[in-house]
């Protein structure tokens, strides 16, 4: 189904073991063959970059594999990264890797959907361009079950691409858009015709972002952990110590009230926590004495994470910028009305989450 360039862009749609086999390789070879060593090193770098919160820059030039050798390196390094991660057993790294690969795939999907867009009018797509666009649409169908189509598809036998517009069924749109809070995602603020919603390539990819992340994540978690491969030990050990570096960020939820635990869990799952929930979590942790820098990474998994914005907002809440007012954690009553309260008997009739666990007699 996929052409060579597409496999490099979307390696996660491949069956890892099968692909290696098809290319005539066995995993063990990568541990022993010095010619293949750079690919293992590349796989390690790929994980390292992701762990640092950066998106891996591939060797693809202009979205195409520039050299013959580039393609296998791209795909193998992805597949080997999964093997290394599974061997290390470090879930924090797996999550970070999945997130960054997902961001990377988003960029390619958007570019492929937008291919040969011509705002000034229709243009005839080459067969190759058409195929690239179709593959992106197929991948979206595969990961989210959402069918997308172009408003105008055929023009006297030629494929055309006019405006940057894609059509999605209203029902498919709604089940996803209700989780977004910006007003422009409300159905009334979208162009709707003939049972379909009009979206730009960027918006189309944004709509299925969560499913893309989940798909890639499941690809990783569903992969069986292989036996240790001779020659990989060194890299695996390095990953284990790399993961330790991030351990300071993992929050022990034991001492926190259920509302805060819930909010952290939502974020850990990469799901969207409403603005009110983020406000609660941030103000709670700030009051508990954590610093803006300590708290910020918690939001990294949020679907709309933006480091600059997060830091700005946290500093506002902390009173370190803006008006200088330090915001306090909302009361239990307020949280109840916002559907953020998950009270248990341990809450013991407290009126603010900050009182949780303190003896009040």
């Amino acid at each position, binding site marked *: 189904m996929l052409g060579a360039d597409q496999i490099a862009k979307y390696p996660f749609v491949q069956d890892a073991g099968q692909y290696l086999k098809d290319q005539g390789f066995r995993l063990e070879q990568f541990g022993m063959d010095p010619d293949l060593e750079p690919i293992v090193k590349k796989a390690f770098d790929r994980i390292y970059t992701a762990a640092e919160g950066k998106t891996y820059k591939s060797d693809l030039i202009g979205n195409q594999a520039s050299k013959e050798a580039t393609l296998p390196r791209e795909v193998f390094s992805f597949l080997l990264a999964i093997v290394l991660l599974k061997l290390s057993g470090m879930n924090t790294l797996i999550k970070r890797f999945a997130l960054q690969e997902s961001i990377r795939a988003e960029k390619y999907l958007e570019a492929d959907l937008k291919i040969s867009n011509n705002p000034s009018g229709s243009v005839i797509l080459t067969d190759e361009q058409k195929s690239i666009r179709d593959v992106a649409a197929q991948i979206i169908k595969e990961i989210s079950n959402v069918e997308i189509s172009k408003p105008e598809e055929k023009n006297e036998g030629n494929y055309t691409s006019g405006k940057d517009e894609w059509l999605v069924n209203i*029902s498919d749109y709604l089940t996803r858009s*209700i989780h977004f809070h910006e007003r422009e995602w409300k159905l009334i603020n979208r162009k709707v015709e003939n049972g379909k919603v009009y979206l730009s390539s960027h918006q189309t990819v944004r709509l299925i972002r969560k499913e893309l992340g989940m798909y890639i994540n499941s690809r990783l978690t569903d992969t069986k952990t292989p036996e240790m491969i001779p020659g990989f030990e060194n890299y695996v050990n390095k990953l284990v110590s790399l993961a330790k570096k991030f351990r300071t960020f993992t929050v022990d939820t034991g001492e926190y009230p259920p509302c805060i635990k819930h909010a952290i869990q939502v974020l850990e799952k990469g799901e969207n926590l409403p603005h009110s929930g983020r406000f609660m979590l941030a103000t709670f942790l700030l009051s508990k004495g954590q610093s803006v820098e300590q708290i910020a990474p918690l939001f990294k998994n949020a679907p709309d994470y933006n480091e600059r914005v997060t830091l700005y907002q946290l500093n506002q809440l902390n009173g370190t910028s803006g008006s200088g007012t330090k915001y306090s954690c909302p009361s239990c009553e307020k949280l109840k009305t916002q559907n953020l309260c998950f009270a248990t008997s341990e809450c013991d009739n407290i009126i603010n989450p900050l009182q949780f666990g303190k003896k009040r007699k």
Partner: protein
Amino acid sequence: MKETDTKFLEDSFKKYYFEHFDLIKVPERTSEREFGYQKFNSGMTRHLSIKNDKELHLLFMQNIPSDVYCSNGYYTFPNLPMNEKDWKEADLIFDIDAKDLNLPCRIDHTVAVCSDCNEISKTYDKCTKCNSTKLEKKSLPCLNCINGSKNQVEKLIEVLVNDFVISKENIHVYFSGNEGFHIHVYNSQFQKIGSRERSELTDYIMFNGMIPETFGMKKFKPNRSDFPDINEKGWRGRFAKEFFGSKSNRSKLISSFVKNPLDEYPSFKNTLQTVSKKIGVKIDPNVTMDIHRIFRLPGSINSKSGLTKIHCEDLEKFDAYTDSSFLSDDPVEILANCPIEFKLRNKKFGPYNNEKITTPTFAAAYMICKKLATIA
């Protein structure tokens, strides 16, 4: 309600049900629906499962319900408690009610009935006789109310057909039996969506929550070509038609928006609100959002009026106060305190000021259901 009134209504309803089984049919996929009913002077019985017309008719004859309901939702186990039913999907439903239209005529045909002393007056805050604040408003909708509701139904159908491509055969319009219309939509792409998604649909249909940017208006550097054209489809087009009116006016207004966007932005926002009140479809959002609702069953009588919830084959020609009145015309003596004149089956009744009168059963039932009369 007095025992004699209940007895009279039960007898009249029973006769109707017995003679009009042809109008009371189970909806499709019967065994996946939840049924429920109410009896006079008692609570709701729900979570019932019914297999066919025969079982439904038996329910009517055995219980003589005042009101009967059926779910818009489909369940694996419709007779289990709500959280065990296993919800599968739900038809899209809409309620359009004359009382939500804020029509100026409403005050002319609405009275307050005191729950403590039954005094009827036009004062809505407290009873003029006993000062009780427990007042129930009763309205006897007029032709204007029905036409206003019909107009909303037409607007709704326009959005459903044009924007959502729902075929007309899948849109069934019913007179609710009282003050408005119920619209059932079958087999649409929305069958499986949940309550929050349906809430978004209601905002769309009601033309709520728009931002000026959707209609081309920006605070900085708005672009002429982003403003909607009068012939455009969807809400952009409907808004343009209502707001700009003509092409020349459109051009003129856009020029002023583009020239002074920062000043014009707030007033554009207000315009959206004003236009929304005019062109948005006035549906009850709570009904459409509800995926577990039991909704009045077509063919059953609405105990707020004694009229039948009936299918409107031709909305334009539909005469609510003739086509939905099925109770007998046997004469009955009542004590009527109905200060509003009304028309049923093309015959005028009232106003009555505490008078003992003889009227046909259908008119007596109407007034008794409205608590504006009792059996003499």
